[in-house]
């Protein structure tokens, strides 16, 4: 699937890594704060304890004398715990207490100090009968009692430091745990996201290799990936439809252009046939010209549609009197309709103007009228009639060609707009099957629509333009 460096380069992995980093930095900061805060609290507590004991002992010294103070210090010293006590005479000579020696400058100069000390361990004596010493580090307060005696009270801080060490250990373990957890969770998330993105990539490469019916898988989670997948699928649907349309048109072009080309070739061949007389040859050549003229017409129609569909260059639109165009074209076709036994009437609202391409609008109306005449089938006992009209309705201009003939079945009404589509019964009539496609393209060129409605009976073809 992907190599490791590739995976590391993905957006998902980079995002995950960023979040892990932010998480770790935040955790470290938080834990540091907690450690520092607790250490500080303990220190405060110890200082307060020391001060309280010093005050008590001072009070005892002041009220009860040397015996009482000696007794009190003796009692405190013999208690297990972090307490450190030293009682000396005014010159600083050791009298009592649980530490062997205190530097003279600490004893003689009242204040707060911290120093390495050696402490007697009660009930722990060497074979020679000497007390064993325990080393430690203490914070102490040194005072001179009212009686002149020197007192040093302190607390061992090794315990406190031990506590800090525990916190730091816990903290390190926490950070490592968080890191591992984030990496695993991030990896899983990245993998899941990558898998879905890879699925989309895989689908698109299948589509690029030609399989247009492939679709991106959609899960039931209904998340943003599913949203994306659904949209992509909708887009693919549309593309497939367009491709199908294109293929149909190409097939039709191939068929509808190949047929006359084949006829053309056959005509030319028969003219060259041995034994063909002058008259035969002349006839074959005349047919050849007629066929090629038809082909040229088809090409022109196709080009015109393509041009109209591509949109008009701005210079070709001008103010056009649509009423005049409709009336002109209707007048042009009136005799043809009359010869076919159809009454061609006009219902023209005067003076309808529009920014349009006069030639294309004219051609569109011609196509509609020619269709109406060509495919007219007289109904029983009814006078054949085609009405060509133009009118304004709200902000729109409607150009209509309506007949009372046999009509087009509803299911075929949009199909006939497609290129080269000719309904079964019209296959035998001459024509390219492009007439209505061109009308549709012309309507779109003018930002309007073309539709075929039921005229009950008959067909009403409507070019609906914004005006």
């Amino acid at each position, binding site marked *: 699937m992907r190599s490791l460096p590739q995976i590391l380069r993905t957006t998902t992995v980079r995002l995950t890594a960023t979040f892990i980093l932010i998480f770790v930095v935040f955790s470290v900061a938080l834990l540091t704060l907690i450690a520092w805060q607790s250490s500080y609290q303990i220190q405060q507590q110890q200082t307060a304890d020391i001060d309280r004991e010093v005050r008590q002992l001072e009070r005892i010294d002041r009220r009860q004398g040397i015996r009482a103070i000696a007794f009190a210090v003796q009692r405190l010293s013999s208690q297990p715990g972090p307490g450190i006590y030293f009682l000396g005479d005014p010159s600083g000579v050791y009298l009592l207490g649980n530490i062997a020696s205190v530097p003279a400058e600490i004893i003689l100069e009242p204040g707060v100090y911290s120093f390495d000390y050696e402490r007697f361990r009660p009930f722990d004596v060497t074979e020679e009968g000497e007390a064993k010493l325990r080393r430690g580090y203490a914070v102490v307060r040194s005072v001179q009692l009212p009686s002149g005696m020197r007192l040093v009270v302190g607390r061992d801080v090794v315990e406190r430091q031990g506590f800090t060490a525990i916190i730091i250990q816990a903290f390190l373990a926490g950070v490592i745990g968080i890191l591992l957890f984030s990496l695993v969770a991030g990896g899983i998330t990245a993998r899941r996201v990558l898998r879905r993105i890879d699925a989309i990539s895989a689908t698109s490469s299948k589509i690029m290799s030609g399989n247009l019916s492939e679709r991106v898988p959609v899960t039931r989670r209904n998340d943003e990936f599913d949203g994306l997948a659904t949209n992509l699928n909708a887009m693919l649907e549309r593309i497939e439809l367009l491709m199908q349309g294109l293929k149909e048109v190409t097939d039709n072009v191939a068929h509808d252009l190949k047929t006359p080309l084949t006829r053309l070739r056959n005509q030319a061949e028969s003219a060259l046939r041995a034994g063909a007389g002058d008259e035969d040859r002349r006839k074959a050549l*005349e047919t050849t*010209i007629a066929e*090629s*003229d038809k082909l*040229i*017409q088809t090409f*022109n129609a196709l*080009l*015109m549609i393509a*041009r109209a569909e591509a949109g008009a*260059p701005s*210079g*070709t639109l001008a103010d056009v009197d649509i009423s005049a165009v409709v009336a*002109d*074209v209707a*007048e*042009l*076709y009136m*005799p*043809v309709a009359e*010869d076919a036994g159809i009454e061609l009437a006009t219902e023209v609202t005067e003076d309808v103007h529009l920014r349009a*391409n006069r*030639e*294309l609008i*004219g*051609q569109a109306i*011609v196509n509609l009228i*020619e269709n109406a*005449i*060509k495919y007219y089938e007289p109904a029983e006992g009814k006078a054949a009639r085609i009405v060509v009209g133009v009118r304004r309705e709200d902000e729109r201009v409607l150009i209509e060609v309506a007949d009372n003939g046999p009509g087009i079945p509803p299911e075929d009404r949009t199909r006939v707009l497609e290129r080269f589509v000719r309904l079964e019964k019209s296959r035998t009539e*001459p*024509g390219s099957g492009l007439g209505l496609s061109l009308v549709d393209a012309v309507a779109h060129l003018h930002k309007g629509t073309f539709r075929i409605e039921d005229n009950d009976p008959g067909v009403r073809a409507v070019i609906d333009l914004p005006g």
Partner: protein
Amino acid sequence: MKILLIEDDREAASYLIQALDEAGHITHHATDGETGYAMASGMDYDILIVDRMLPRRDGLSIVESLRAEGDKTPVLILSALGEVDDRVTGLRAGGDDYLTKPYAFTELLARIEVLARRSSPSEAATTYEVGGLVLDRLSRKVERDGEPILLQPREFRLLEYLMKNAGKVVTRTMLLENVWDYHFDPQTNVIDVHMSRLRAKIDKGHASPLLQTVRGAGYMIRD
């Protein structure tokens, strides 16, 4: 007529020259724009047939230069570009007529014969007369051998165009362009139907028909 053909496609040109020769015209030929322009400004021709896309100098610029120099020789522009806007730019550049490839030779011949000013009645003539048929452009009245003929406005314009070019062939597309001002090709025989109606009005009851159908080309009015 003396014709200058500026066309780079040698095969198309030689076919055209031969056909024009058979129709009784003398044709000079230039295969590129510069030579064509030099020949057109150096000699007196009755008509120029100019292809739009030419090597060295394009057809439209030749026509523009000639017009700028005051040369009024009629010009027929040939082009593979047949869109409405192409036609408009062609005519705006000074062309008198525009024909889209591929075209029928009869169409080209009819157009250049109508374009050549020689032997045409002047634009200013107020009446046209062909074999007893008289058309008065001012009073818009038509009569044949003194008998008035009632025509619809469009029929009048149709006859006016035919009579202005009396003795020359006019094609269906020329009629559609000049009488109706549209350039599309109708699939049905619209023009023929109009012509048969006009013929019924002017020729009915007369021994010698004036309006004649020229097979494979179009129509012509003459006595």
